C-alpha cells in the first residue's frame, strides 16, 4: 500500500482542478465512469452485510482497514457511476487519520458540480457513503480512547 502523503484538503483541491477542465456534463460523467471502471473490484469475501452501505439504489460495499494509524478504505458497487463516486471518496479519505476523516468538510463535491448528488433523494447514496466512512472513523477513535 502506497502511503498517502497528501492531506485530505490537498487531494480535494487536486480533484477540483481535474474537474475544472470539463465544461460539459458528459465529460464529467465520462471521467466518473472511467474512475469506476478503474477502481479495483473488492474481494467477494469482503462484500458482507456489515460492509454494505444501506440507502443506495445500487449495491455499495465499503471495507475498512487500519494500518499505521491510518484508515484504508476499499469500495465497490454494482453500478459504475456509483463506483466512480465512491472511488472519489476513497481517493480523498483513504489512508488518512481517523480524526481528519471525521472532521473533513468535503467541499470538493459542491465545487465539481456534484452537489445534486448530496440531496437525500439521490438514489446513489453519496450521503450514506460519507456517513458510513465517518462512522467507521468515529468508532475507531472511540475504541482507542
Amino acid at each position: 500500500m502506497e502511503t498517502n502523503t497528501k492531506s485530505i484538503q490537498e487531494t480535494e483541491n487536486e480533484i477540483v482542478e481535474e474537474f475544472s477542465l470539463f465544461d460539459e456534463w458528459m465529460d464529467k460523467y465520462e471521467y466518473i465512469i472511467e474512475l469506476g471502471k478503474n477502481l479495483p473490484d473488492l474481494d467477494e469475501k469482503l462484500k458482507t452485510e456489515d460492509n454494505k452501505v444501506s440507502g443506495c439504489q445500487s449495491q455499495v460495499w465499503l471495507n475498512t482497514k487500519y494500518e499505521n494509524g491510518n484508515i484504508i478504505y476499499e469500495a465497490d458497487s454494482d453500478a459504475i457511476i456509483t463506483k466512480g463516486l465512491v472511488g472519489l471518496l476513497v481517493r480523498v479519505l483513504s489512508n488518512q487519520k481517523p480524526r481528519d476523516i471525521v472532521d473533513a468538510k468535503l467541499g470538493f463535491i459542491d465545487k465539481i458540480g456534484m452537489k445534486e448528488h448530496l440531496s437525500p433523494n439521490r438514489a446513489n447514496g453519496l450521503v450514506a457513503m460519507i456517513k458510513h466512512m465517518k462512522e467507521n472513523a468515529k468508532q475507531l477513535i472511540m475504541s482507542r480512547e
Partner: protein
Amino acid sequence: MSTFDAEKIRMDFPILQLKINGKPLVYFDNAATTQKPQAVIDSLIKYYSEINSNVHRGVHFLSEKATNAYEAARKTVQKFINASKPEEIVFVRGTTEGINLVSNTYGLKNLKEGDEIIVSTLEHHSNIVPWQMLCERTGAKLKIIPINKKGEIIFDEFKILVTDKTKFVSVAYISNSLGTINPVKKIIDYAHSNNIPVMLDGAQAVQHTKIDVRDLDCDFFAFSGHKIYGPTGIGVLYGKEKFLEAMPPYQGGGDMIKNVSFEKTTYNDLPYKFEAGTPNIAGSIGLAAALNYVSDLGIDNVAKYEHELLDYGTKKMLEIEDMRIIGTADEKASVISFLVGKTHPYDVGTLLDQLGIAVRTGVHCTEPLMNFFKIPGTVRASLAFYNTKDEIDLLVKAVQRAQTMLL
C-alpha cells in the same frame, strides 16, 4: 394515428414546458406520479381563494359551500368508476391507505389462523405488506399467484391456490413495474364462484383504462388521485355497500361518529364511518377536476393513443442493441421496463436525467417481482397521453448515448 392531439393537450400542463439541465423536459415517470393540468391547479386555487372552510355540520355559508363541493367530488368519483351509490366512495390518502383500511377492518374482523389470502408475484409492496401484517396478527397465510416469463399471472395456478381456506384475494389490475394487465375479471368471477371477496389495486389502472366497478363486480377497489392527474394525498376506496356496512371503523375521531359518550359511542353512516378527522377537502375537489379532465378527453381515446405509443416505443426500443424489455405480456398498459446489456439501471437513469429525460430506476417497490426475474431492478419509462412519438425517439437516442458511455 388517431385524431388524439397530444401536442395540444401538452399545453394544458404547465410543468411540461420546463427545461431540465438545459433541455426540454421529457417526462416518462408517469407510473410514479402524473403531471397536473391547469384545470386541476385552478380548482385548488379557487378552493382556497373562494371556498375554504371545514365540511359537515357548519352552519355558515362557506362551510355549506365546501361541503357541497366535497360531496359533489364524491359523486364525480362514483360516476367515473360507475359505483352504485356515493356512500360506496370513501376518500382516503391514496391506494396504500385504501388497502390498509380493508386489511385492518374487513381483514381483522374476518380472518383467523389457518385462513389464506391470495396476492400475486406482480404486486406493489403496498399490496403485499398490509396483508403480511394482517397475517402476523391473525395467523393467516399469504399465498402467491405465480407468473410466467412474460410477466403474466398464470390463471390455472391461481385456480389451484383457491381452496376452502382462501378468505380473500387482492391483486393489482395493472402491474406498476411491467405494465401487465391482469385478467381481473376472470379472477373475480372464479373467486366469487367460491364465495371469496376480491380487492383490486387500481393505482395503475384508472388512468389507462375504463373502470366500471359494477361490471368488474370487484368487492373493493382502491386508487390514488395523483396517478390520474390529480393532487397528492387524496385517493379513493370503493367498497360494496354490504361489505362497508359490516366492517368496523378504521380510525376514530371527529366526523366518523354519530354520538359520543364515555359509556357508548355510536358510529356514523357510510361513508363517514371511514373518514375520521377533517378530510382532504381541497384534494377531493382537485381529484374531481382531474377526473372531469380525463372524462372530457375520453378514457377510451386515452387508452387507444397510449396503446399506439406503447407499440411504437416497444418497436423503437427493441432496435437498440442488447435491449431487454422486462414484461412482455400480451395485454399491456403503456409501461416499458428495460435493461441494456450489462449496464446497471441506476447508471442509465442518471445519464438519461442529464439529457432531460425523467425515468424511474430500481425495483419500483416490487422486490419479489425483481427477484423472480433475477435482476437488480429496471429502467422504467411509463407513458401518459401527453407523451409523443418524438419524445420516444429522444429516449431511444439518449439510451444509445448512455450505452456508449457505459460500455
